[in-house]
């Protein structure tokens, strides 16, 4: 259920960020439904098959969508599947999608694909521990090991939850390839991280990648929504709006970090994860 909802909403989310960014820059934006039209346009196009590519080249975009889409199954925004430890499944299904994406980029044999892959995998390796620790801390603080059992933010767990939110917010910009970690609008191959991986994919394959990118963002948005002290759907909607506005503002008024400085930012993600876990273990209450 949640997967379906996120799949349907993903282009709207990325489209409205584009529109908002345009408005903040005094430009006329492309309209909220632009990304649906764009996906439809790309879907009907032909694609180019690089000479050295193997079927992994096709598997990349498919897995990139299936990863976050199947991860969303365990997200309890709408009632769905739930079991103990499902947050681990969620994180690693996301990683599975990325692994195939990196393999597909390597498979093209282009220098940019390889460059994008090693950069993205480095970022992934740096983000994973913090994100996992933060989610685990939230679960432990709630006394339940399934996402559906997550308690809302309240006075008793505020400290831990704030740290978890920090970790998730940093993970969102890093994994979603947004500013200040990556610039989704850049055309400069040498600075690209995520975009460099998808350079050789065209037509329907590119459509899948575009869908996957916004889907991944939405998975993180839903995770943030789960922590907020409101009914599930309302919290999700609120997280959607807040994240969208925050990303648009960040990408208009922010400057992209120098690539070699990105690990500095991601260290805050790890730090927040460690502190959150310590907070639970040491039963820090305010």
């Amino acid at each position: 259920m949640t997967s379906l909802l996120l799949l349907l909403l993903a282009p709207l989310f990325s489209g409205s960020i584009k529109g908002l960014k345009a408005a903040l820059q005094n430009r006329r934006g492309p309209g909220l439904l632009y990304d649906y039209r764009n996906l439809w346009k790309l879907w009907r196009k032909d694609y180019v098959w690089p000479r050295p590519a193997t079927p992994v080249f096709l598997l990349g975009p498919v897995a990139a969508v299936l990863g976050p889409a199947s991860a969303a199954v365990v997200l309890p925004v709408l009632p769905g599947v739930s079991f103990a430890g499902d947050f681990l499944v969620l994180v690693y299904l996301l990683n599975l999608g990325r692994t195939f994406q990196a393999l597909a980029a390597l498979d093209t044999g282009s220098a940019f694909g390889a460059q994008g892959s090693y950069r993205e995998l480095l970022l992934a390796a740096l983000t994973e521990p913090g994100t996992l620790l933060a989610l685990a801390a939230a679960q432990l603080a709630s006394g339940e090991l399934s996402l559906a059992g997550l308690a809302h933010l309240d006075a008793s767990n505020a400290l831990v939850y704030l740290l978890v939110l920090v970790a998730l917010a940093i993970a969102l910009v890093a994994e979603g390839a947004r500013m200040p970690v990556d610039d989704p609008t850049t055309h400069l191959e040498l600075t690209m991280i995520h975009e460099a991986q998808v350079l050789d994919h065209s037509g329907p394959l590119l459509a899948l990648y575009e869908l996957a990118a916004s889907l991944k963002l939405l998975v993180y948005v839903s995770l943030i929504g789960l922590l907020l002290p409101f009914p599930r759907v309302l919290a999700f909607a609120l997280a959607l709006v807040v994240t969208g506005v925050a990303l648009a503002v960040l990408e208009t008024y922010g400057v992209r970090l120098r690539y070699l400085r990105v690990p500095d930012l991601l260290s805050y993600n790890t730090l927040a994860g460690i502190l959150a876990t310590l907070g639970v273990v040491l039963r820090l209450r305010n």
Partner: protein
Amino acid sequence: MEALKRALRSGRPVALWHDPPQLRYLVEGPSGMEEFRIPADRTFTCLAREFPALAWFERQLAEVAALQRIGCADPKPLRDHGTPFPFATYDGLHEVPVGPVHAGVIEPGHFRFSVLGERIVNLEIRLGYQHRGVRAAFLGSSLERGRLLAERVGSEPVAHALCYARAVELIAGVEVPPYADRFRLVLLELERIFQHLGHLAGLFTDIGYAFAATQTGRVRAMVQAEIERLSGHRYARNAIVLGGVAARVDEDAARAARAKLSELAYDTSTYIAPVLRHPMVLDRLRYVGVVSEGQAHRLGLVGPTARASGIGRDLRSDEPSYRPFVPVTRVGGDVLSRAHVYLLEAQASFGLLDRFLRELPDGPTAVPVVAPDGEAWARIESARGELLYVVKAREQRVQAIEIVSPSFKNWPALEVAVRGGGLPDFPICNKSFDLSYADSDL
């Protein structure tokens, strides 16, 4: 030869071209311009080993004049794509080829990086993809047609047309009317602001600062509107003619342009200048892509690039109309210094424009130009730096032409600046030099 070497040691090569049966060197030294003529029939001696500033000139000679090089340290082609390019390779280093087709809509050029992880150990640039046979197109064309061609050589039509026109006027021995002389400088300064803001907007886009890029782009577009108001064309094409300018700007238009330009000068100081004080912008631009003053001297760099490395040479200092004139100089040699030079020069140009437009003299707009057979050269400080045209006229036609664009002299600096830097920082280095591919490929 010894006199030439002595001059090169204390000066900077401005041009080197083959004028059969001799090679002609123009060298600007502390005491002004000197010319040297060295006989060269089928071969010539390379001096690039001692004077790296000559390297690209000598590579060009080997192709354009088909002369054999003697004692050449680096016998690579320049624009010729018929021979394979011997890229340097290093054991154990990863080679990253970029271009000539890029992911964005930009000019074509091939960059070959040897990288160790994310660090650039060496960069080699291969150009020539924009070669259109500009020299051949000039040969035998009428002097007037030559002006049309000059406007299309690169992305700075005013500077090229003005430089060509001045060379032809020198041959003819005519002096342009005061009004035309002044109005040409108005166009030149407008073009400088337009180009410099373009460099800055590109830089801000590349570091992902969308708001600054949009604001800079807005001011730039409005400067272009003023170019159109004053010249009738968005790039001021056909505004400069041989012997003067095409038309007179009426007083109302000049007044309106002055008002608008002072508004834009204000916008530049309010919206664009603070960007270069933003801490994250500083973090991206500072200490990146450094060209030291010594390197700038040895490579013979010109224009804003040289001025950002501490060489305070601006050809506008030589022109009486500009006096009093102080060139903008920075000493850092990094991307930030170049951005500062662009910003400060654009701001200074707004001031100059106000002065020029207020004091537009009366009188005719142009005088007829009838050129006897002869040769002359002219130099202009275009937005990118020193532009040189050497024109030889015969029977009212172009018999020979040599164009030395600032980009041609500054391209080697990029190879030096990125060495040791990070691969992801290359695009902002490249943008900070803002070199034209078209006018060095010719």
